[in-house]
């Protein structure tokens, strides 16, 4: 017995020896991020974990407000020529890089030509084809000459889509291997103090920041915490102040304990729709009636409440509802109706076998989307459709779906971006079929839709563009190359002692402060 007491005493001593009370100091915000950024060059990668950290070190020509409208950043003003083919930016005066060198238009020209248009996947795909040249006639002026009017331009110039990097650091080097990728020099509100891989990135206030009075916080510490349960415990415990992404299932646990903000945009994507892609190269899925049967079987309202915990909306149109001038509410008028679905499948010749199954399809998805897959499998069983769930990590998923095209169904979170030109056209254009991740997964081809995208993408007239987008939505809502499930919101949370975080922007902490 005496022996057992010793053991308990030892255990207790071990625990309490380590427990001294922690104290707090300074205006530091500790931010939990799920993944390690890898490096800190936001111009050569579109990876989410990288931009979550690096966007606070840099600036774009413009910043985007909560509604996705352009506000001054490195450019203080801009004007568009009457024909829409020339956009002239006046740069902000007195901006310096973190190493003290002045920022000029040469940095902008270099960033677009040598970095963004070559290495930034979205800028290369969505912006470069429209731009004829980026000119720097004087140190404070940048002129974009366009091949055709490109109305989405301004929304593609914020720090996430087009960060500006220093020419004097990158000129003449191989950008992928430049040492500055892990010791970045930016113009941003914060500069790098230390980066410990898979552990933390510490940024400190840029005292020479060109926006008066900003930033208000002294330090930003990004803690890399892969487990969401650990992130929530750390927020509850006060070790972490800000969670950039809270999964829908966890939001209820934070109600009343933290400031919770829901947005449709966040670093790494804006206006995302969880989408079921039909591989139209597969004979059974090429049948229109079969795809209609899916639309009549999948209960999206149930999906919104059970999987997304109400954090979003049932998709009402192929284009996200936040892009109000382009979307077409009510375009997706398929009611949940099993008898209709069964009749459609009977008509398509997919008869039930003795065990009640008509067909089996593979559904590929990221591990994070497993709940969607499980619910759909259950719902589709009602129409005799069997689903084999295959959860693949991102690299394997992209290869299977977009390179090998070896799948029946794929679940993809398509982020529309703040303009349909950014993230919508890639889903439908016939030119976007092939070895490009997250492009036209369905392999959908429709000449009318291609033409309408051309029309909408080359006009600056919002009314005309909206008309073209609505017309093409009517077509795809009938053709059903995809079934649009739910619009998924991003939820961010922070401790109540902090104010003015902007989770919809890459520069989310530029204006944040801590109340006393």
């Amino acid at each position, binding site marked *: 017995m005496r022996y057992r007491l010793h053991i308990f005493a030892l255990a207790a001593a071990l625990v309490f020896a380590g427990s*001294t009370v922690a104290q707090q100091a300074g205006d530091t915000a*500790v931010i939990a991020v799920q993944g390690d950024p890898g490096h800190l060059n936001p111009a050569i990668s579109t990876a989410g974990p990288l931009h979550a950290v690096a966007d606070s070190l840099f600036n774009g020509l413009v910043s985007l407000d909560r509604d996705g409208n352009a506000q001054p950043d490195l450019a203080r003003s801009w004007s568009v020529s009457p024909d829409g083919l020339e956009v002239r930016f006046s740069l902000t005066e007195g901006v310096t890089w973190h190493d003290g060198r002045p920022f000029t238009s040469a940095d902008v020209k270099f960033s677009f030509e040598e970095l963004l248009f070559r290495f930034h*996947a979205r800028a290369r*795909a969505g912006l470069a084809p429209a731009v004829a040249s980026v000119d720097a006639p004087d140190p404070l002026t940048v002129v974009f000459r366009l091949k055709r009017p490109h109305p989405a331009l301004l929304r593609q110039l914020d720090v996430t889509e087009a960060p500006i990097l220093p020419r004097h650091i990158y000129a003449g080097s191989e950008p992928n291997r430049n040492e500055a990728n892990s010791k970045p020099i930016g113009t941003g509100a914060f500069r790098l103090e230390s980066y410990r891989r898979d552990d933390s990135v510490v940024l400190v206030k840029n005292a020479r920041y060109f926006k008066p009075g900003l930033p208000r916080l002294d330090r930003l510490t990004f803690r890399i915490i*892969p487990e969401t349960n650990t992130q929530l415990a750390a927020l509850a415990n006060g070790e972490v102040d800000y969670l950039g992404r809270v999964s829908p299932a966890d939001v209820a646990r934070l109600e009343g304990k933290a400031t919770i903000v829901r947005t449709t945009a966040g670093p790494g994507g804006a206006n995302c729709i969880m989408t079921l892609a039909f591989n139209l190269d597969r004979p059974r899925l090429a049948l229109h009636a079969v795809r209609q049967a899916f639309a009549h079987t999948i209960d999206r309202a149930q999906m919104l409440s059970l999987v997304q915990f109400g954090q979003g909306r049932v998709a009402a149109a192929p284009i996200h509802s936040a892009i109000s001038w382009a979307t077409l509410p009510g375009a997706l008028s398929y009611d949940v109706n099993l008898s209709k679905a069964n009749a459609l499948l009977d008509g398509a010749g997919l008869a039930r076998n003795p065990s009640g199954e008509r067909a089996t399809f593979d559904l590929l998805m990221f591990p994070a989307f497993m709940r969607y897959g499980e619910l759909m499998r259950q719902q589709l069983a009602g129409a005799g459709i069997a689903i084999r769930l295959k959860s693949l990590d991102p690299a394997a998923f992209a*290869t299977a779906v977009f390179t090998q095209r070896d799948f029946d169904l794929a679940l993809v979170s398509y982020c529309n971006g703040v303009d349909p030109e950014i993230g919508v056209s890639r889903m439908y254009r016939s030119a976007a079929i092939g070895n*490009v991740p997250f492009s036209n997964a369905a392999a959908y081809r429709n000449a009318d839709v291609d033409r309408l995208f051309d029309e909408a993408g080359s006009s600056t007239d919002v009314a005309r563009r909206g008309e073209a987008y609505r017309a093409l939505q009517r077509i795809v809502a009938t053709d059903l190359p995809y079934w649009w499930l739910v619009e998924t919101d991003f939820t961010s949370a922070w401790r109540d002692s902090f104010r003015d975080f902007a989770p919809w922007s890459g520069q989310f902490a530029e204006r944040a402060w801590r109340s006393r």
Partner: protein
Amino acid sequence: MRILSRLTLVVGAIWLAATLAFLLIHLAPGGPAVALGGDSGAPGYLEEVARIYGLDRPLHEVYLAWLGNLLCGDLGFSYRSQQPVLTLVLDRLPVTLALIGPALVVSGLAGVALGLAWLPRPDKPHRGFVAAMAALHALPSYLVGQGLIVVFALWLGVLPVQGLVDERVPAGGGARLVDMARHLVLPVLALALHHVAFTALLTRARVAGELSRPYIVTAAAKGLPSHAVERRHALPNALLGIVTLFGARLGAFVAGAVVVETVFALPGLGRLAVTSAIARDHPVVIGIVLVTTAIVVLGNLATDMVLRWLDPRLAEGRS
């Protein structure tokens, strides 16, 4: 001569493990180009990235180049973090060792102590203890870690939830060591408890087995108190079996570190292995397999040494 053959075995095991890892990761679908490219891309982008990093070469060429570099002590270069693999691995190794080392000691000592404390007696079989240990052994360290966080960090508030240091108070010197020790208490427990249970049950069974042998009857007959009989006579003989089986579990400690480092957000080798595998950062994954295989193989070697020390018969080649 025996040392030489032993060494050949060690090198052979490490080479085999690394080659298997090389094949597995290269045959996995999706390459580093996709992971590096991010969530979308333009036509030709993946091909260009593949060319820049030399990922478009045939597999046997890559393997031979890798093997050649390995023989010169070069583990390769990480695609993802643009650093030599050796630098990355050596940078992470201390954290993992700081986790595994104390966990080994804790589970060894606490396991043996618990096993001795709850030896089965004719009047008290201690079935509750056996059931508790069996349950503890069955719980995944992922759950144990979450449970420890809830109890010690959230309810009692005495220990931190995650990380290796307090982000708000950048301490130096001795204070920093204390801070790190505080942060390591829960992860070490999460890793160790599973093995504590195993060692406790093992010790209990082995010592109980010894207690039925004739030399114990002799020891008891000459008037020694029971705890002296158990600890001075039965335990040393039982230890041979305990150390053998405990040493064989070193690999399980390394594997457990992967989970524990993820739960507690510790920047160790296990986390590096997971993030590198997801990013298809081939050289890093292979480098980690090399290093951990070496640790396990050397650990088994160390177990043999301890056994020889415990039992001189082994050193003399008798059985």
